[in-house]
């Protein structure tokens, strides 16, 4: 049973990295899918709404992750971490 649970968790983890992000994006898209076609909003504005909502959820989710990480440990030096990623491979 424990093995099955671990396997299920592993498979779910392949698709869902962060529950908040996945749930929020699904809810936003469901709301857009239900409301935009019926509300008489200009379809071009509907596209902007989809993009803006997804972008806002991404920023919100990263902000939450940073808050959680910095609440438990001092952060890695951001400049060094970024430069080791980009410059080290040039």
């Amino acid at each position, binding site marked *: 049973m424990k093995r099955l649970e671990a396997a299920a968790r*592993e*498979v779910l983890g*392949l*698709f869902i*990295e*962060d529950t908040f*992000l996945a749930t929020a994006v699904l809810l936003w*898209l469901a709301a*857009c*899918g239900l409301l*935009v*076609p019926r509300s008489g909003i200009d*379809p*071009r504005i*509907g*596209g902007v709404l*989809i*993009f803006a909502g*997804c*972008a806002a959820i*991404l*920023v919100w*989710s*990263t*902000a939450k*992750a*940073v*808050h959680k*990480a*910095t*609440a438990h440990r*001092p*952060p*890695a*030096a*951001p*400049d*060094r*971490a*970024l430069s*080791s*990623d*980009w410059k*080290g*491979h040039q």
Partner: protein
Amino acid sequence: MRKAVLRAAGILTLHDEAAIFAAAARRLQGCESRPGALDTVALLTSLKAVVVEGLEVVFIVIALGAARGNLLPAGLGAAAALVLVVFLGLAIYRPLARVPENAMKFAVGVLLSAFGCFWFGEGIGLAWPAGDLAIPGLILGFLVVGALAVLQARRQATRAAASAPAP
């Protein structure tokens, strides 16, 4: 894309793919099956490596093909893409391995988000401004949002470090 943003901001540590591969290979070395028997470990490892991307392809083919009654051309397109990816993988795997992993994941995240938004909009009957040309706009939009998210995450981390009590 979220993980790529957090890695670029220094919140998550960067992956060392070569080390991860070596560690996984070491772990799996004791699991070889008998010659001639079904190698379940190899089967599950390969399945885990490709199941997400495979399912994404299946969903895209069904979404694009079923919506407009073009399941066969969509399927053929996916098969042609598979051949092209295998060919490109064999031809350019060395230079590809030198591309920074996080930069590649960031780029893939931007592309998936942009195409996902576009196709979702198409699915609910939206008329995107400029039609298919909205895709480059969405790519640019997610690129800018991703870059801003990295800056915001770095600033947030720096502020948290500055306000933390000294040890």
